[in-house]
């Protein structure tokens, strides 16, 4: 009986070990979504930019824009996921090699919700969009006392002055927290003169505050990675933002 049990265990072990998907993620944000869905065990390859704990020990396949195709192929993935940051030509190379490839646009909050739903479906994971939305609401509630009524400008870089507008995911989130985000639109470069015309009452800067003398400015550069990844990592970023904004 023991022998039969051992035989069955050994025969079925490969099925247990390799039963799930083998996913290569070419975007740190997508890796974080997979982690949030509880499927990081199926993640066999990540980019060199994945700096979260769950990425330790995973195979690195290169950058977001320039991963090594042969490294990805050698990992024998069943699914490659990437965003529009990865050139279409590369994604098509994977498809041509017979690897299922999903390329997502990940710019707005709705994009993120869509990505979470699709990946949950692809990986047969429990959909967690509602949970994520709830957690997001909680974090935004916490930010409301410090942001309500503020005319907000989100500076991603200083030279050139590059900002996240109202329709970017960051803009939409902070509008939900009660701020009025300027300018309209998504991510864009603007002139210093235009910034002055906006008359923001608060600037959140990812590039330090020395260039914004005369404005009320909060330096959030230490939390850049947490706030600039359109992924569930935003929850941590918003918590950190509340810590800085509300403790002033």
């Amino acid at each position, binding site marked *: 009986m023991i022998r039969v049990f051992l035989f069955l265990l050994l025969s079925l072990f490969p099925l247990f070990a390799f039963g799930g998907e083998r996913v290569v993620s070419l975007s740190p944000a997508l890796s974080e979504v997979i982690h949030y869905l509880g499927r990081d065990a199926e993640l066999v390859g990540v980019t060199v930019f994945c700096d979260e704990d769950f990425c330790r020990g995973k195979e690195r396949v290169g950058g977001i824009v*320039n991963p*090594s195709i042969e490294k990805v192929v050698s990992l024998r993935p069943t699914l490659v996921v990437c965003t*529009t940051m990865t*050139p*279409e*030509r590369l994604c098509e190379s994977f498809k041509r090699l017979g690897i299922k490839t999903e390329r997502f646009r990940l710019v707005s909050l709705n994009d993120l919700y869509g990505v979470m739903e699709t990946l949950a479906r692809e990986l047969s994971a429990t959909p967690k969009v509602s949970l994520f939305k709830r957690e997001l609401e909680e974090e935004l509630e916490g930010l409301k006392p410090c942001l309500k009524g503020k005319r907000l400008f989100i500076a991603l870089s200083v030279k050139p002055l590059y900002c996240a507008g109202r329709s970017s995911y960051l803009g939409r989130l902070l509008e939900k927290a009660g701020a009025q985000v300027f300018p309209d639109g998504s991510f864009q470069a603007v002139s210093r003169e235009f910034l002055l015309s906006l008359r923001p009452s608060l600037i959140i800067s990812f590039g330090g505050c020395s260039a914004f003398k005369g404005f009320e400015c909060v330096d959030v550069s230490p939390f850049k990675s947490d706030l600039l990844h359109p992924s569930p990592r935003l929850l941590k970023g918003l918590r950190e933002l509340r810590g800085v904004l509300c403790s002033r």
Partner: protein
Amino acid sequence: MLKVASALLIVLALSFLFLFYGSPGREVVLSVRLPELLSTFAVGSILSLSGAVYQNALRNPLAEPYTLGVASASALGAVVSVALGFRPEGGALLFSILSLLLLLFAGRVFRSSFSILLFGVGLNALFSALILFAYALLPSYTLTDALYFTLGFITPPSLKLALFLCSISLIWLFIAFIVRRPVELLPLGSEMAYFSGVNSEKATVSLLLTFTVPVALTVSLFGIIGFVGIVIPHAVRFLGYRLGSGFILFTFLLGGGLLVLSQLIARQFLYPTLLPAGVITALLGAPAFIYLLWRYSGGRG
């Protein structure tokens, strides 16, 4: 003959290294590295062969396939395509053809190789400015496709496309053998060419147009890979081949070899992060070019 055999041997050794470096699996060698090797060699040989023809036809040592605005037109086409939501390759090919037509127009209007060269420089500047203008307008999430194209990354194509590119490069090698007489005579001046039975104006325009076609094709597929077209013909002349079949064959082999070496470095230097092959060719080519310039100008006394 011995030199050609050595060049062939070097290319073969490089190809072997390119295919089997790091002992990859059979699947990687066949489906990734082999098409990459074939297309890289084809692109390098096309660029260097066209560079040699351009330098002779325009009687200018700085002329290369990109001088007349072909590459920047192609890059602009790619950027416009991306902005309109299409694939970059189609727009790149379309705009390279447009640059070809402009070149034909310049050939009819200016009739002097120097004026055609200056016209190309002007076009190059105009297209480059338009590319930067488009970058400022493109949303960040589509910018990568355009940037990837202009930086000159070599992505492994399908084996079919790689074989097609190889045959294109061989066809143009054959064409280069056929037109080697005007290519040899044009640098001697229009009078000398005329008395040797070559109409220099006609020959210049037809050579430029003929050798822009494969360049337009390669640029539309792999983006801008500079310095191969400018350095290799000079290196071949430095090795003692200035005329004839030896010059053409050596240019073809060394051009392909240099790009294969560059792509190998681009692939392995920061493995698994891939570098643009265009950057490596510039890093290898620029010092080599300065050295050749120094030798030509008698820098070694």
